[in-house]
Structures are given as structure tokens and as C-alpha cells.
């Protein structure tokens, strides 16, 4: 049965289409500017997935349009097709090959995930507070270290964000960092980022939090360590009590596991 199909030509068409789609899609910077060490890794994973997806999509297109071209009934032809009920080898192939492809993608993602979340020794901690419809930030280790609506971090140093929500769920997203994490009332959630490009970015709330959701933004400034120190020293406010309470009350999402070593 398969012998009667121009398999080599169909495969060549699939590869050609894959190359064509990939050639158009891979060079495009879909995710926008990248400004953290995680960004290129996530973008590379995306590129690999675009190539694999183009292959799957091209295969389906070639199979579909070849069939529509070759096996379309002539007008007035009322006969039936050939009584082919299946082909065990083909069925095994299209079970096993996709399994291998998705498992490859899964393991690759797992490696990337471990990499972008690996903790550095000199990481700095920043508290993030969210409430309807504003962001504020605290810098532990200093008395007067509270900033409303503006987040500053030094470049090239890992930052551990400890996130707290006061009322409903909010979500912390800086697209250029490729990092997102929900802020959940009652628990402390964490996210790890190493910004590597000086600049000004926007922090966007991505979890529906009420009528002001679309406008819940904050300014993010990544600057040199010297500028950062100067800015932190210039802060004039203490963290207000209700916010301090959340730090004390929240339970950690990822408590250190019992068999030591950490989660």
C-alpha cells in the first residue's frame, strides 16, 4: 500500500516546507527584547520548538493536500475507495515518533528550567508587594527601604523575588526577563532572575485582579551596582506595617524538603 505512494517526494516536500517555514519564523524575535540570562535560553528552546513544530505541521499539510489532490473523486464517481483498514507499521510509527519528539522537548525544557532557576550564592533578595492595583517593593537588610511603583535592581546579579499579595492574586511579569510568577495571598512565592541589560522596563500584572487590572503596572530599572546603591540609600520610607505582616504570616511555597538539600 505504502509502496504505491511517492514517499520520497512527499518526504522531500515536507522537509522543503519545514525549511521554508523555519527560515521565515526562526529569525523573528517573537518574545521581544531579552534582558535576563534566562531570555536567550527560553528563546532558543522556542526556536527549536518552532523547527520541530514546522516539521509536524508540514507533514500534516503535505499528507492532507497530496490526498486531496490525488484521491479526490471525479464528478459522478459513486464508487467506494479501497477497503484498507489500517497498517500496523504505520500506526506504530505515528505513535512512537511523536512520543520521542515530545519527550525530547520535555527533557530539553526540564534542563532549561533547572538552569534558569539555579540559585547563585551572591543572590540578592527583594520583597514584592502587590495589592489592587499597585506594586511596591522592599529591600531587606535596610530600615528605610520601601519603594512604591518603582523597582530598581543591579545588573548582572541574581535577584530572588519574594512575592506577597495583600488582597487577591496578582502576577508579576517583566516580558524582557521572560519571568512570571503569581503573587498569592497567604503564601510567599519566589522567582529568580539575573538581569543582564541596563535599561528601563515595565512590570505587568498578568492575573485578572479587578477593574484596574489593565492599568496595574510598575516601572523597572536595571542599573549599574553603583547607581543601584545610590538609589537604595536614597529611599526614605519604612515598609508599612500591613506589608510587613504579610512577610511574617506567609507560608513558604517551597519549604526546604525534609531530606535536606533543599527543594
Amino acid at each position, binding site marked *: 500500500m505504502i509502496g504505491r505512494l511517492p514517499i520520497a517526494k512527499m518526504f522531500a516536500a515536507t522537509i522543503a516546507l519545514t525549511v521554508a517555514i523555519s527560515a521565515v519564523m526562526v529569525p523573528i524575535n517573537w518574545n521581544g527584547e531579552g534582558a535576563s540570562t534566562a531570555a536567550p535560553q527560553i528563546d532558543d528552546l522556542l526556536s527549536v520548538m518552532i523547527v520541530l513544530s514546522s516539521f509536524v505541521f508540514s507533514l500534516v499539510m503535505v499528507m492532507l493536500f497530496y490526498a486531496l489532490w490525488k484521491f479526490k473523486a471525479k464528478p459522478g464517481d459513486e464508487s467506494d475507495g479501497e477497503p484498507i483498514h489500517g497498517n500496523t507499521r504505520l500506526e506504530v510509527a505515528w505513535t512512537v515518533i511523536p512520543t520521542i519528539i515530545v519527550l525530547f522537548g520535555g527533557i530539553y*525544557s526540564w534542563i532549561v528550567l533547572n538552569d534558569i532557576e539555579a540559585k547563585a550564592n551572591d543572590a540578592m533578595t527583594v520583597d514584592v508587594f502587590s495589592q489592587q492595583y499597585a506594586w511596591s517593593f522592599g529591600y531587606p537588610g535596610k530600615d528605610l527601604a520601601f519603594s512604591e511603583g518603582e523597582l530598581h535592581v543591579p545588573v548582572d546579579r541574581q535577584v530572588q523575588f519574594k512575592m506577597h499579595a495583600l488582597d487577591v492574586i496578582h502576577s508579576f511579569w517583566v516580558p524582557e526577563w521572560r519571568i512570571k510568577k503569581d503573587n498569592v495571598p497567604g503564601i510567599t512565592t519566589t522567582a529568580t532572575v539575573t538581569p543582564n541589560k541596563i535599561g528601563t522596563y515595565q512590570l505587568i500584572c498578568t492575573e485578572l485582579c479587578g477593574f484596574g487590572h489593565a492599568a496595574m503596572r510598575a516601572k523597572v530599572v536595571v542599573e549599574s551596582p553603583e547607581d543601584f546603591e545610590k538609589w537604595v540609600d536614597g529611599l526614605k520610607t519604612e515598609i508599612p506595617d500591613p506589608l510587613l505582616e504579610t512577610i511574617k504570616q506567609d507560608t513558604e511555597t517551597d519549604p526546604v524538603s525534609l531530606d535536606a538539600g533543599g527543594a
Partner: protein
Amino acid sequence: MVAAIKQPGWIRGALGALAAAAFGFGLVIALRAISDLPIYQTEQTGYPHVVVPLILAPLGFLAGFGCFDYWLRWAAGMPTIPDDHSQHGATSWKDYFRFNTDHKVIGIQYVVTTFFFFFIGGLMAMLIRAELAQPGTQIVDAATFNSLFSTHAVLMIFVFVIPVFAGLANYVLPLMIGAPDMAFPRLNALSFWMLPLAGLLFIGSFLAPGGAFDAGWTGYAPLSTGAPLGQSFFNLGVQFAGASSIATALNFLVTIITMRAPGMTFWRMPLLVWANLSTSLLVVAATPFIAGAQFMVLFDRVLGTHFFDFAGGGDVISYQHIFWFYSHPAVYIMMLPGFGIISEVISTHARKPIFGYRLMALALIGIVVLSYSVWAHHMFVAGMFSWLRVPMMLTTLLIAVPTGIKIFSWLGTLYFGKIHTYSTAMLFALAFIVTFTIGGISGVMLGMVPIDIHVSDTYFIVAHIHFVLFGGSVFTIFAGVYHWFPKMTGRMYDEKLGRVHFWGTLVGTWGTFIPMHWIGMDGMPRRVADYAEQFGNWNLLISCFAFMLGAAQLVFLYNMIVSWRFGPRAEGNPWRANSIEWQVSSPPPIFNFDEIPRVVGGPYEFGVPGAKHAIMAGEGAEVPEAEPSVVGTT
């Protein structure tokens, strides 16, 4: 007048609803009065004097309408009204507005009602796109916008996609397996009548103080537990829609397992029957979870419990676990029946047996099993235990495998066939393969944690879900409606208008939802009434395509209404299909078969010399039982 009140029907239904609402209202007032509480509690999460009547009024309506008459009489030891089959069949349009136990009438009631909600939900989508056509606020304010996209999603999911499949299957499935009706016709009618009540509760929430529910169709706590009264309408509507789907699923399970015609073994069932068997397994086991989740939210709101109240010791994230434990399987509840429809349509119009029939059925079962183990992929950034992410990622990616098997098997079915594309149903089926492949691909990407961290809760998600739910489920619904329209109405629809609808829908779908992937990755979050200037042009383009998509649906509506009334008469089997529903007249006789058919072979034996699926009454009874067809090998 007295007779009208005694007879089950609309008048007694309305009185029942009023009486039940008055009773509920009085009960709340009386209890609060004797407890020395203020009579009216109007904090926005409270309103017991509204919530309790809202629970009771639909039940009062159902009782008045006659849904419980037979059972109540029987339970009370009263003489039951003899079953003279007056509740079977429809002789005029009025019969569709009565409590009717005929699965064919109920099927049409379902399809028409759900399409009514489809058009209401579609109008909301048009409003949403009108607001988003430009940055800034033009047409609706932010709070109304949140209500609009929440009700849009809820109407489409709970009172369109899920029940329209139940409606199509209600009509077709008993005929397909050679049964005279569903196993429990009265339960079937009750299931249907709960549905419009759910839809009315969802739409009625616009009348509540504070506006319609606005916490998204996901209703995440604590936004939902603190939301205005409209949220309670949602909590209650879900109960009625959920009870309706659970009862229907039980009905399908019992019907499929016990009422197949002689000779219809499991491996001779059409794939639509397999698809509804698997869907029903999902519905009965998963739906109680969303019912529970919404009851817990309602209790938090009205009774002051603390399930999801972090200050009272509740756990916010547990809402999401319970919700998605239903709502991910629900994605397959909204897809598997469509898979069944596509199998029927493609096999019939390609004049070919389904390629790898057994693997197709097993893939359905594989999806059922796997779909219970992937829910937390909706929560990769939600702040749950981080170790849960990798196992959920792997199961999520693996569920692409049975889905891929189905895509490749449909393609295999086309090979060496005689493909006819004159039917709009076949066009939608072929287009479904393409759009669903794209939705599947973006689904695999979303399953990968690092990519998901970046794109979750952005327009990429909006694009993905519409590619699988509109480009997927709704395309299969259109394929199914066109395919069985002649059977259900006894008329043919207009293929030319069908083509206009098809191309308008296909181009509209791609034009609307493809660019959403791009703006999502580039930084536009979802569920926002306003967005950054940089996305302005793309959104304008998306809105234009969305309006075109909306306009194409009007062509469909016109075609359906006019063809139903004036279309040329349909023969019993206009598509020359094999399955049993096509071997009876269009529309079928009131009790389906004069004599139950005898099944002697597989359902897709196109091109097999002398093969037959079923022997109908009057056909040579001397035909011997054919050799079981060899399936799965060449």
C-alpha cells in the same frame, strides 16, 4: 384557567418558580427576623434573600413544568399517568416547547437552545473586539469589560460547546446503536430543561447590583469570593449546567452499554459512539469537582466559610487545583465528541474505512486516562509546589501522542479513498485537521514550563484556546450540524451558503486568532480592557477579522432557518453512509425502528465487497452473520 394550572406546562412552571422564589425569600426573612439579624444583608457577597430564591426558583420551575410529575406520583404511590407516548415525537413547533421525552425532540431542543446561547456569547465577543479595536476606553468601562469576557466564556463553554455535543449525540447516538430511545427518557428531558435555566442565570447576572460576574470563567478565589452578587449567579448556574451534563452522561453510559442492537459489539460501534462513551466517563467523574469548587466559593461568600480565605486559614491555591481537576478534563469533554463527528464525516465522504479503527478507539480511552493527570499545567506560574511542574509537563506533552494518532489516522483514511468535498460538513472536517494541528502545536509549546512561564496569561493563551475551542470544537460542531441536518430536519441545507459560511469562518478564525499568538509573546497580557499603544494596529486587524467571523455566522443562521422551512426534502441517506441512523427515513419514524436492526459487521466497511453494517427490518432475514471484519491490518 384551572386546567392550565393543573396541567404541567409553562403556566404551572411560572407559578412554580414564583412560589418557590417567594418561599425562599420568606424563609430567609423569617429566619433572619427570629435571629435578630438585620432583615436584608446587602454586603456584596451576601444577599441571602436573593441567593436562596435563586436556588429554589429553577427547581420550582422544573417541578411546575412537569419534569418530576411521573416520579413524584410513583414515589407517592399515586396512580401514574399511563404512558400513552403523548410525550413522544413532535407534530408542530409547539411540541419543542414542552416537556418531551423523545430523544430526537430533546436533541433538537438542545441544539437550538445551545446555538441561541452561541449567538448571545458571540455578540459579547463582538463587543469585546469593538472595545479592543483601539487602545484606551471607548465603548465599555473596565468593569463591564471584565463582565463581558467572563460571561462570553461561560456561555460558550457551559451552555454551548459542552451541551451542543450532548444534543447532537442525543439525536444521533440511539439511532446509531439501533436503540428506540435513550435508556432514561424522563431523565433525558430533565437534563435538557436544566440547561436553559443555567444560561438564564448566567445572563441574568447582568441585572444583579454590581453587574455580571467578572472574575473570568475561571472564577479564581479570592477575587470571586469577594466579588459582587453576580458571582453567586455564576456559582449557581454552574450547578444546573453541571447537573445537566452529569445526568446526560449517565444516560449515555447506560444507553451505550445496555441498549446496543444485537450484534453491535464494542468493536463494531461507530467512533462517534466511542467518543461519547469516553466523554461520558470524563463528565461523570470530573464534573463533581467544579460543582464542589463553586459550592465552596458560594459558601465562602454567603455562609462565611473559609475554604479559600487565607486570613481564616483557607488555602487560595487549592481552588485552582480543584477547579482545573475538572476544567482540564473539560477541555477533552469539549473535544472528544468532536473527534467522533470528524471520524464519521471523513470516513463517509472519503468512501473509506477509518484507518486504524481500534487504535482510534484506544486513543480516546488513552486521552481519558491521561487527561486526569495534567491539570496543574494551568498552574505552572501559580505558586504551587514547584516539584509538581515537571511531572505535569511530561504528562501534558504525552497527551499529544493519542491526539496525534487521531490526526494521522484521519489523514490515512483519506488515502486511496474517493474524496467528495461537495458537503460543507466535509469542508469543516478537513479544515478542522489543519486548525486543530496548530492548536495542538501551540498546546505542546504551552506544556513546556520555560515557554509557559513567559506566555502564560498573555494573548498567546487566548490564541491557543480559541484555536482548539473554535478552530477545533466549533468546527466539529459545524461539521456535525451540517452532516446530520438532513436527518434531523428532513430537509437539505443550501451548499452554496454553506460554502460562504465555511470560507468566512475559516479566514475569520485564522485572521482573528493567529496574530493573537504574536502580540501575546510580545508582551500583551490577556483579560485587559486597555493595552499599550504598540499593539494598536494588530488589535485593529484582529477586530476586523473578528467582525468578519461574526458576519459569517449570520449566513449560517439564515441557511439553517430557511433550509429547515423551505429546503428540498432529504432522502433517508443523502451521504450514502453506512451507519444505522442513515438506514431509516429522514426524519426517522417516531420510535426509530419498526424492528430493532441486527448488526452484522463494522460501521465503516466502504469498498468491502458484500459487507454490511446492519440488517434492517424487511431486509432478507436469511442473510447469514458475516465474518467479523478484520480491523487493524491490511
